């Protein structure tokens, strides 16, 4: 029986054991804080805190994290990472290009700060996929699969959360600022959906339901927790659903009562100067919070920045709002990660669902329309060799000209960077085998140095 056969056998078994949930539950159960009381919990936590200083994590790939900068709506490649200064005005538009700190590499002129981090970044300029509908393309880019009516594919974040599990009481997969299609757990099940932690730029930022109500303190919470145990007639009932609920309830208590986990979300603790440098806006503060979260133990943080669907007023929106925000937040994130020694274990990915038409449209306030035939993806950190551009679009930015890259290749690369085999198979509840990345090739140039 070869490997794929074994996997099929596995699927047949899983299907009849309530999909993947049972295995997940077992996995969760082994994390080991089931049934601890809060004082025991604190003791354990204190012991953990002493033994492993948070910042100096071991650098095995299993400890790597991802920060996904998701540009919802589809950002123009020409106005960001693939400027065409020599093209006709009807294509290049009013924006110029700026040389980065890597000689010979230019990016859009409104990204001057990120340009100075170019030596850490690799730009993939020849990505394309051809699906111009937002929902489908969002799904494609964030799962590596085009959506099907009967299979919901899991996002990269859900897969990585599934593979790497939880550490330090923190949700493994967190989403910040906004949400988009294609970020969910799909057939892996809702327990691997992202934990939505809102917009950290909001005054008095709090994660929904993370803090106890004002009239409840830890002592009262502990009393309540014990009381539930005492009054619950279904305690210990023979049911996977009961066990699963107990597990997640314990996780929630862990998150509520763990000082370090709570602190990871306390962006207010950061120095005012650094917060300013990231930018006092949703994106900038999300970048900062994302850094705090991966530092503390989250595996995958997605920041969804919307507003890129610029059919109208492309240049105004980009110049006055989106690009300065992106430039500041992303540049500071890369610098900050690097200075903390976190960049080598953190993959930063920038992308959106598609590029935009190189030809500027004829709207009253001109914009660019959907263009899935060419888009740029940026990657940095986690072993990616910076200072390089891979692939090339033609002189008008219409499509790949050299080294075409498929979405599946991007997917394979993300998994590979995280130390996962892109050919690893999962099985849908109906038993269909699904590889992590569908026939994608790892973009090897990214790792050559």
């Amino acid at each position, binding site marked *: 029986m070869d490997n794929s056969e074994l996997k099929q056998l596995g699927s047949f078994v899983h299907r*009849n054991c309530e999909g993947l949930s049972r295995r997940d539950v077992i996995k969760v159960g082994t994390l080991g804080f089931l049934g601890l009381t809060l004082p025991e919990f604190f003791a354990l936590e204190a012991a953990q805190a002493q033994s492993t200083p948070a910042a100096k994590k071991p650098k095995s790939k299993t400890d790597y994290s991802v920060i996904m900068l998701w540009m919802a709506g589809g950002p123009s490649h020409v106005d960001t990472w693939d400027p065409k200064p020599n093209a006709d005005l009807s294509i290049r538009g009013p924006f110029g290009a700026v040389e980065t700190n890597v000689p010979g590499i230019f990016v859009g002129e409104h990204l001057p700060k990120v340009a100075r981090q170019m030596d850490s970044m690799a730009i993939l300029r020849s990505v394309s996929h051809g699906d111009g509908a937002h929902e489908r393309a969002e799904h494609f880019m964030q799962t590596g699969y085009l959506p099907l009516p009967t299979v919901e594919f899991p996002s990269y974040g859900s897969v990585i959360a599934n593979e790497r599990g939880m550490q330090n009481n923190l949700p493994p997969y967190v989403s910040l600022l906004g949400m988009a299609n294609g970020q969910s757990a799909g057939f892996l099940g*809702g327990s691997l959906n992202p934990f939505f932690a809102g917009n950290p730029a909001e005054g008095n930022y709090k994660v929904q339901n993370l803090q106890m109500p004002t*009239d409840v303190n830890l002592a009262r919470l502990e009393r309540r927790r014990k009381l539930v145990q005492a009054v619950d007639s279904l305690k210990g009932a023979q049911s996977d659903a009961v066990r699963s609920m107990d597990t997640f309830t314990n996780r929630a208590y862990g998150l509520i009562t763990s000082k370090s986990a709570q602190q990871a979300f306390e962006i207010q603790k950061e120095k005012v100067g650094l917060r300013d440098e990231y930018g006092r806006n949703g994106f900038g503060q999300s970048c900062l919070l994302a850094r705090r979260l991966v530092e503390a133990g989250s595996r995958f943080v997605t920041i969804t920045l919307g507003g890129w669907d610029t059919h109208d007023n492309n240049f105004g929106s980009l110049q006055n709002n989106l690009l300065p925000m992106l430039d500041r937040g992303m540049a500071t994130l890369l610098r900050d990660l690097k200075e903390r020694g976190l960049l080598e274990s953190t993959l930063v990915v920038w992308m959106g669902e598609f590029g935009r038409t190189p030809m500027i449209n004829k709207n009253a306030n001109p914009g660019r329309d959907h263009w899935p035939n060419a888009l740029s993806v940026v990657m940095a950190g986690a072993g990616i060799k910076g200072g390089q551009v891979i692939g090339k679009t033609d002189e008008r930015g219409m499509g790949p000209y050299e080294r075409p890259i498929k979405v599946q290749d991007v997917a394979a690369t993300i998994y590979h960077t995280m130390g996962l085999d892109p050919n690893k198979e999962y099985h849908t509840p109906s038993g269909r085998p699904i590889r992590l990345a569908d026939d994608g090739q790892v973009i090897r140039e990214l790792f050559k140095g």
Partner: protein
Amino acid sequence: MIDEYRMNLFASKQHKKQVLLALTALPVLLGITQISPAKAQKPVKKNSGSPVGATASVAGFSVQPANATLDGSYAFQTLVAVGKSIDGAERDLSSSATYTSSNPAVVRVDKDGIAYPVSDGSADVTVSHGGRSVKAHLTVRNTKTNSRLSFETSIAPILIKSGCMGTACHGAPNGQAGFKLSFFGYETEKDWTAVVKGKDGKRINLKDPEKSLFLMKPAATVWHGGGRKFRPDGPEARVITAWIKAGAPFVPGRTAYNTDAKTVLTSNKALPAAPKLESVYVLPNNRTIREANSKHQLVVMAHYQDGSEADVTPFARYFCDDDGIATVNSEGRLLALRKGEANVMVRYAGKVGISSVMVQPQAPTASYPKLTPNNYVDDHIFAKLKQMNVTPSELTDDSTFIRRVFFDLIGTPPMPSMVRQFIEDDDPKKRSKLIDELLDRPEYKDYQTIIWADLLRNTRILLKEGVEPYTHFIRESFAENKPFDKFVKELLTGTGSTYQNESATANYYRVTNDPSELTTSTSQIFMGVRLECARCHNHPFDRWMQDDFYGMAAFFAKTHHRDGLGKDEIIVYHDERGEVRQLRTQQVMPPKFITADKPLENPQGDLRTYLADWITSKENPYFAKATVNRLWKQFFGRGIVHPADDFRASNPPINPPLLEALAKDFIEHNFDVKHIIRVICNSRTYQLSSKVNSTNSDDTKNFSRYYIRRLGPSQLLDAITIATEVPEKFPGVREGTPAINLADNSVPSYFLDVFGRSNRLQVAEPSQQTTISQALALINGSTINARLSNPNGFLAQKILGRLGDRSEKDILDTLYLNILERFPSEAERKEAKTYLTNAPTTKEGYEDLAWALLNSKEFMFNH
């Protein structure tokens, strides 16, 4: 050499042989051997498993199969000797039986019961065991011509079984070591070409077949990167050798080397066509096994369209769905492990067969309690449980029953006053009466509307203003208890504006107008058949071919959209344009029902009416079953076929007669949904307690108790608002509207989303998954906490505000009744009293108590 193969196959049977030989010495050879489940995991020792039930006697001794044909010199037939005890349990006696051929010049048989052809003719094999004997009749033919060999039916299955076509080997997108085969043999012609023409024809050596790389590589008589795939003297090698000798034909007459290769082997004589495989089946089809740790040889028979059959046991692939109960090895030998049920799925050349086993160490005992069925549901459930020696749980109490049936039938909990009334009512028919009342309540249609809106993907994101008419259609259909076939027919033929009530079902085609997507969702929703796999290739676990998929898609090809006058309004219409092409062949597909052999003859007008009529007809093999199964799931949390929309040969129902009976009843009552619900709810099975007894704690699929499950998103939210008497305010919706009335799930609600409300962008029911966000919402969220501190709520008004004028007992009764819909036990009163006494303040004490009850699993689950 095949003998050696067989010996090898049974080498590990030595152990069993000893056991059986030891048993032979015992007076009651075929007595019931009882092995307790505790011992079941250990290997059977020679001296263990002493027969008890000394009175049991043998009901039968037989051989499987009793008739067989050995077609071609390479053929073989596995014969299995079966002993059957009076209680219906079976044992595999093959390894201790003896076999004799009546004519060794025609049929040779080895000591393991494998028969081989010698020359054309016929002979009997006598199988003897313990003084009994029985005959198998064998016919031998084509030993000289081997005329039935073809690549597709004879060779490809061996390659698949040996793993050659997997993605890790030659089935990889770029092949392996210069040899590429299609993934799981979906393109046999290309594969054949690669075998016979690839590598300049060096893979095949016609002059000296045994020197062919195609044989030597997998047999590893020369170096092979993939290692040894089969033995050089095994049945695979015999078939391949015979095939190469016959000219390596793709089909008879079309051989490897034609004239230009100067080695034409095949004469132009008219040869029979390659046999077309129709199905495979497994012997035994089902078996009750008493002995844990016993071994059972499965025999897989291929059945061809011309009526002929062949033993393909070594070439089939085996998958057991519960390897805690039984395992099966790659040679088809099943090992029973412990008490329970398991299904072995067998795959051969794209066809699927199944063998179901029940391992039940104890025969039904005389002490099995006499159970009183309420209706036919119980007859079937109890019959199965008795067979398994499992006693169902007790009947559940009244307070649990009323809460349960409210949630399951109308999606919302009873008001506390109703619970009190119901408990006090002493009418023996009160449960039946309650069921009838619930079926007439308006929430019945509201709840069905939520269920169906999820399946039909009724969301504003897809349908815009079409949501209202679509909701109206679903709601009215269930309100009037429209016959279900009519409901489905109206959906499938939807035409006109998506914004008008009279053409609301046009929205079925607004959700998607893609013929492939419609094929997938329509077959899944109304027939419980998942065709998705057949979109890209023939279905690997089922009978469905790509032609079936695109034949069904063709019914949807002539349905189109145009813009209406309203904003985002769509008009669905039908005309003569439109076609569907099969993905692989790129042929235009005529409309064909998935189970039909031939396309529809001369269809006129709107093709969808043909499809709608066929799907909803009383003869459709899936429609009634899939529908009653879905209804069953609504009440039990899992289907008789599970998952409820995954009807497959390889996924048999847990209780086939029950499914048959429900489907028959549904058809006889003209697809009356309420009738089936009434039958289900009135059964004793539905009214069983969820508490386990000493016999049924392992049971998770035979409905010997009520399986508890978390309330759905809207059920849970409504339960909280009713218990706390503080309504929920949804944005843009009239205050006080319960969640069950939100037909449009785009109404924002963090709570409903977190608890798994479907986004309806896929055909999906609410998620039953648990998440950390759910736990946080319950522990810290305002949904519970703010309601407990609301001055107008239940806690403030009826508990804290009444402490002075009501007894503590009365207060606790009210608290429990409002939240858990039952009265507290004495122990619970005590527990509560202790907590209240020790609490910093009385207010805090009651708040915590209410909070704890709302956070209990008893509250969050239907049980």
